[in-house]
C-alpha cells in the first residue's frame, strides 16, 4: 500500500522533468521485452534499464528494495522451473527424485531475471515521474478512447483522486481501529481468522466514513469550479525531438519483442 506514492522522490534530475509520455511508452516496451524476448534482447533491455537507473541516481539498494516485495514470487518461479524442467542432470545436485537439471537451472534464472526486470520497469517509471505528471501523460495517451465514449480527463482525475485518497484511507482505518480498541476490541489476539474477523468489523464504518468523505470532497471540487469534462493542467506537455526519438525506439523495441 505504501508503494505507489512513496516511490517518487523529487530530486529534479533531467529524467524527472521529461515528458511522461515517452516514459510510459518506454516502460510498456520494456515490459513487453521482459515478457517475450530472447536472451540477447533481454541483455540489451537490462542495459537500458541500468542506464535509466543511473540517470535517475537510483542506487542498487533502491532498486533491490523495489524488487523485494516480489522476491517470494520470483523465488517460487525459479525453484519450480529449476526442479521440473527435463534435461541433463548435473551430478552435484538433487535429493531422491527431486533433481535440478542444467536446462531447468538456466530456464529458472532467465525467468527470475525477466520478472525482476518487469518489476523494475514499473518501478523506474514511478520513481522518475511525479504522480500528477503520470496521470496527465496517461490522460493524453488515452485520448483516443474518447471514441468509445470514455472521457480520458475524467479517467485521469479518477486515478489521481484514488492515489490521493490512499493515505487518507490509511488514516481512517487507523482512527477507526483505535476507536474500536478503546472500546475493548483486540486486533492482535487469536489466529489469522480471529484477526480477520476483528478487521472485518471495520468494513462498515470505514465505508460510511469514506462515502461521507467523498461527498465533501465532491462539494469542495465543485466549489473550485469543477464541472467534469476537459481541464487544463499545470504541466505543459510538449514533445521535443529527444522525446520523439525515445517513443520511436520504444515502439520499435516493443514490436521487435514479438519476433526476437
Amino acid at each position: 500500500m505504501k508503494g505507489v506514492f512513496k516511490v517518487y522522490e523529487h530530486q529534479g534530475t533531467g529524467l524527472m522533468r521529461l515528458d511522461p509520455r515517452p516514459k510510459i511508452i518506454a516502460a510498456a516496451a520494456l515490459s513487453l521485452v521482459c515478457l517475450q524476448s530472447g536472451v540477447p534482447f533481454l541483455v540489451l533491455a537490462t542495459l537500458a534499464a541500468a542506464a535509466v537507473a543511473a540517470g535517475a541516481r537510483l542506487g542498487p539498494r533502491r532498486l533491490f528494495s523495489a524488487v523485494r516485495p516480489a522476491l517470494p514470487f520470483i523465488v517460487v518461479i525459479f525453484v519450480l522451473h529449476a526442479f521440473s524442467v527435463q534435461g541433463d542432470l548435473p551430478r552435484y545436485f538433487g535429493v531422491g527424485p527431486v533433481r535440478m537439471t542444467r536446462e531447468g537451472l538456466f530456464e529458472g534464472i532467465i525467468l527470475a531475471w525477466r520478472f525482476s526486470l518487469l518489476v523494475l520497469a514499473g518501478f523506474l517509471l514511478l520513481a522518475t515521474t511525479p504522480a500528477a505528471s503520470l496521470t496527465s501523460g496517461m490522460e493524453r495517451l488515452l485520448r483516443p478512447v474518447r471514441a468509445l465514449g470514455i472521457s480520458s480527463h475524467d479517467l485521469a482525475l479518477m486515478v489521481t483522486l484514488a492515489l490521493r485518497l490512499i493515505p487518507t484511507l490509511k488514516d481512517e482505518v487507523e482512527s477507526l481501529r483505535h476507536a474500536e480498541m478503546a472500546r475493548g476490541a483486540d486486533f492482535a489476539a487469536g489466529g489469522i481468522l480471529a484477526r480477520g474477523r476483528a478487521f472485518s468489523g471495520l468494513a462498515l464504518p470505514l465505508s460510511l466514513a469514506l462515502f461521507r468523505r467523498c461527498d465533501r470532497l465532491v462539494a469542495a471540487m465543485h466549489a473550485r469550479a469543477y464541472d467534469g469534462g476537459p481541464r487544463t493542467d499545470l504541466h505543459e506537455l510538449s514533445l521535443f525531438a529527444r522525446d520523439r526519438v525515445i517513443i520511436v525506439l520504444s515502439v520499435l523495441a516493443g514490436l521487435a519483442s514479438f519476433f526476437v
Partner: protein
Amino acid sequence: MIRIEDLSHRFQGAQSPVLESLSLVLGEGEYVALIGPNGCGKTTLVKHLNGLLMPTAGVVSVDGMSTGDKRRITEIRCRVGMIFQDPDHQIVGMTVEEDVAFGPGNLRLAPREIRARVDRALEAVGLAGLRHRHPHSLSGGEKQLLALAGVLAMDPRYLVLDEPLSSLDHASRTRVLDLVKVLKEKGITVIHVTHDMDEVARADRIVVMDKGRIVADDAPSRIFSRVEWLKALGLAPPYPADLAWRLRCRGADIGAHVLTMEQAVNAICALRQTGGIEERFEEKRIDEGGL
C-alpha cells in the same frame, strides 16, 4: 454584491425547512461573521452562495448573476471562493502545487497562466517552499493555507470561510486569520462562519442566525453588548466583552465597545485612574479583614 432574497431551503424528505425566507445583502469589501448555535443553518446558507445548494424558494445572486443560472455557475464559483472545515476533505492534488492548480485547470486556462497563478497564490500564503510536497504530509495549519491558496488562484471577490480554523492550534489560526485580514484589506469580501468569538470580533458586521432565520445583523459592539440575549441563544460573547459586561453589572463605568483583550485592559486601567474601581477594591479588603 451578494444578494439573498427570501431564501428558503428544505432538504429532501425533511419535515421543516433548514432556512426560512431569509434575506441578506453582503456588500463589497465587508468582513461579515456568521454565527449561531449548531444546526441553525449557517453551513446550509453559505453553500447557497456559490450554488453548491440551490434554493427551494427565493433567489441568491452574486454580482447580479443568479446561482440558478447554469451558464454562469462557473463564473460564480470563481468569484466566491470557499474554504471548508476539514482540510483533508478539500485537497485534490498529489502535490501542493498540483492542488492549487486544480481550480485554474477547471477554468481551462493555459498552462503558463496556471503556473503564474499557482506561483502567486503559493507566495501569498507563504507555502512556496513546500510546492513539491505531498499535501498529506503538511500540518493542519499548512493544509488550510493550501486550501486558501487553491481559492486565491481563482482570483475570488468573495471568500467564504466555513469554520476552517476549528481544528487548528493558536499559532496556525493566527497565521490564517492574519492572511484573511490582508485579503480583506485588498478588497475581498469575507464571510466567516465560526463559533470562536475572538474570530468574530475581527468582523465589521455580525449576522446571528437561529433556527434557519437571521435574528440579528449589526456591528460587533452592538451585538456583544446584548450579553444575556447571546447566552440565551447558546452563544457566548468574547471573553473581554463578557468581563466588561460583568463589571458593568457591578456598576463599573465601562462602555459596550470592549471586544478585545487590549480594549479590556485599557478600559480597566481607565477605571482605576478615575477611581471608579478603587472604592470597590477598598471595600473588599475591609471585608476580608473583617473575616
